[in-house]
């Protein structure tokens, strides 16, 4: 792309802004804690409220209540939404009464079981943390990694293969090896759109979508063909992985809380350190926010794009590997419940900051885990969570809507994280 002369004149200023603007020590940037979380917080509340309205509007008992009188209608509405959300939160965080009783009894097993909903939420959060980090890292590099789903599948397949095909290794070698295989496979899968973007300018979004379908078909082929479980009757299912490849769970079954959660947290810290504490991270963020300035500053954009994409893919592959090695212990085709799109939501909700992503992932884990319980108690389909997630996402992406609802003053610091040029590429 040819650049105008005007760009050149502004260049020094642009780079300066770029670097100082990103500097956390700059006094201008300091926002109060409330200001930082205001929009996400209100978005979550509003999302839950609208979800509640939907629950009420699709409930038989509410209509029956309104048929009697307005007041009994509202009572039924309150009861319906209350039951739903109460079961959502006891299902995901544990029932306070049971927890207190268990603590008083002092029985370790009881305490563990009372806390299991909370632990299970952490289990559910773990893949979200990895996938969200994958997307957030790519966002920071100005890349839209919509291919997390495919990278996750390929990562899971690689981890599964290493998990069952290699036998007789001690656990402290086998498990890291399987994890590494997952990360490497995810990275390889993500490098393809990265290379295509860097070399030909083909937009990574459409390439990632294509790679998702290829990954899905490829894993279907692998699971019904070369990697199928002997005696599985042609079902798309892999053999069980070796015990030595398991990511250890801390407690006895049915509590599934495992080491993977802490690995995920460690990776969040690692990504934070890379992004904000290393020169390479600064380069990556500069490429992401202002590729033109980065180019004039002499940064290697091609390399940054490729490495950024590979790291993002590695994190996505870890999400898949984690699910196999820690939770499922074998691979089936229904592995992912849409982590790919959820990861975009997570990265946006967490403002593409690793720690923000962790918080967002915890929220999603809680919602997902609680929704299972809610479905049992009040027969509300689990998909209410997806709807609430979409609503939250709308409000996060368009803060103007939230500001309009709550009459907040607008701030000028909302800048788009990613800019999209056309599919064909701007090269």
């Amino acid at each position, binding site marked *: 792309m040819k650049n105008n002369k005007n760009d050149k004149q502004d260049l020094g200023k642009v780079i300066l802004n770029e670097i100082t603007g990103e500097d956390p020590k700059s006094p201008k940037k300091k926002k109060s804690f409330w200001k930082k979380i205001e929009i996400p917080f209100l978005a979550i509340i509003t999302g839950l409220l609208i979800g509640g309205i939907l629950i009420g509007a699709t409930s038989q008992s509410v209509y029956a209540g309104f048929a009697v009188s307005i007041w009994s209608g509202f009572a039924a509405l309150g009861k319906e939404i209350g039951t739903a959300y109460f079961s959502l939160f006891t299902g995901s965080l544990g029932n306070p009464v049971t927890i207190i009783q268990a603590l008083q009894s002092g029985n370790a097993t009881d305490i563990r079981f009372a806390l299991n909903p909370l632990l299970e939420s952490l289990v559910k959060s773990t893949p979200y943390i990895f996938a969200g980090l994958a997307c957030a890292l790519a966002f920071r590099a100005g890349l839209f990694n919509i291919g997390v789903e495919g990278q996750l599948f390929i990562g899971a397949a690689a981890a599964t293969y290493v998990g069952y095909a290699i036998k007789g290794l001690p656990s402290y070698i086998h498990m890291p090896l399987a994890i590494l295989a997952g990360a490497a496979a995810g990275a390889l899968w993500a490098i393809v759109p990265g290379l295509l973007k860097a070399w030909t300018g083909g937009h990574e979004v459409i390439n990632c979508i294509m790679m998702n379908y290829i990954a899905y078909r490829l894993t279907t082929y692998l699971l019904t063909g070369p990697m199928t479980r002997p005696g599985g009757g042609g079902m798309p299912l892999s053999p069980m992985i070796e015990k030595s490849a398991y990511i250890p769970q801390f407690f006895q079954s049915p509590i599934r809380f495992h080491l993977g959660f802490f690995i995920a947290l460690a990776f969040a810290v690692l990504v934070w350190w890379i992004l904000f504490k290393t020169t390479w991270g600064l380069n990556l963020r500069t490429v992401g926010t202002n590729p033109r300035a980065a180019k004039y500053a002499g940064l290697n954009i091609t390399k940054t794009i490729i490495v950024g994409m590979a790291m993002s893919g590695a994190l996505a592959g870890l999400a898949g590997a984690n699910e196999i090695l820690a939770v499922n212990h074998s691979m089936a085709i229904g592995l992912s419940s849409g982590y790919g799109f959820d990861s975009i939501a997570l990265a946006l909700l967490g403002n593409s900051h690793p720690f923000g992503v962790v918080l967002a992932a915890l929220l999603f884990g809680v919602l997902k885990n609680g929704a299972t319980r809610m479905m049992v108690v009040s027969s509300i*389909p689990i998909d209410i969570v997806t709807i609430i997630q979409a609503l939250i996402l709308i409000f996060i992406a368009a803060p103007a809507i939230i500001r309009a609802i709550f009459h907040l003053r607008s701030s000028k610091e909302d800048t788009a994280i990613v800019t999209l040029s056309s599919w064909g590429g701007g090269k």
Partner: protein
Amino acid sequence: MAVSTTTIHHQKINEISSIRRYATGVIEILVAVFIYLAFTAKMASDTLTTFVMTPGGLDVGKMADLIVPTRITLIILSVFCLIIAGIQLIKGFGKLTNLMVGLVFLAFIFGFLSWQAAGKSLNLAGMLSSSVLLAVPITLGAFSGILCERAGVVNIAIEGMMLMAAMVSALMGSITHSIWLGLLFGIISALLLALLHGVLSIKYKINQIISGTVINIFSTGITAFISQKYLQVFQQLNNPPMFTRFEIPLLSKIPLIGPILFNTNFFVYLMFIILIILQIALFSTRWGLRMRSVGEHPKAADTLGINVIKTRYMAVLLGGLVAGIAGSFYILGSVGRFDEGMTAGKGFIGLAAMILGNYNPIGALGAGMLFGFADSLGSKLSLLGSVIPSTLMSTAPYLITMIVLAGFVGKGHVPAADGEPYNKE
């Protein structure tokens, strides 16, 4: 600046560089050699392949089965490719290059089918007929994408719009017992989502991919929610009437083409009608010129008095309308009931078809047909007990899309302002 880039792009399309000429020729030779070596190997000279030329269950427009000696057919196809490759290398075909590549591709496919069905019988007409039906949602999705992106709005929410329209037309079609009301409400639901996409991406200037993703997530959630809450519980709510086969007099009696194109579903006709309208409207009317100018250079369009914002809203809404028709097709034209996630990513494939078809309705139809054919081929192959896994075969269209996008086949023309929000100053 964008105007000058456009001209450069157009030149690229018309002129074929010598490297590309030779590369194309070499690839065509490779295809010829491949057909000869891979397909005729171990083939007895008396093997016959039977192609059934009438789709199952039809009496109108019958055609006799085509029985060919496999080995000789394959050799002829191989020689045919070789001749094209030779001319390509020596003289070049100029503007006809892509057409010739298409012919070689067809020869390859035909050779592949003859090889696969050697000694057996393959219902070619039935396969083509199902390809057309499978192509309908993909092509309509591509049309939806063209409408939006020609005006400069990237729309990856087509998938969500299709899913929503499918659910709503199942529900409303069942409630009203009317096909047309089912279709109407399906379209309205997609229009509402399109409006949301418009408001988010045009008014609030959210990144258009994020906006599209949000709509996709929302649609997945709400359709699954309503499906589990109502459609699966009350079966009578998921039992809409369907469009039956509609025979066009006279035309349906043409052998092969008649049964496939003129004795088929309402939606196939609708697809062709939309194709003609879209092709003319986009490239031969003032309306189309204005819309494309908004997608190429919104600022210039604005200076000339075109209302950029309004044009973009209109484009997105029209795109929603077409996506709504595509979604309703699943219910009213194909399956007859709603299942969760039944569009299965066809909206995204539609986007790929749009790119493959170079943002051109006719091209999109061709690409849609290719994807439909690949789907149909995949299912046929598994029936024939092929040695090639159909799951791997079915990745071919995605690979082709990526190759095209990478510009290996020649750079297409993308609307210059695609994906960029417009700030009126």
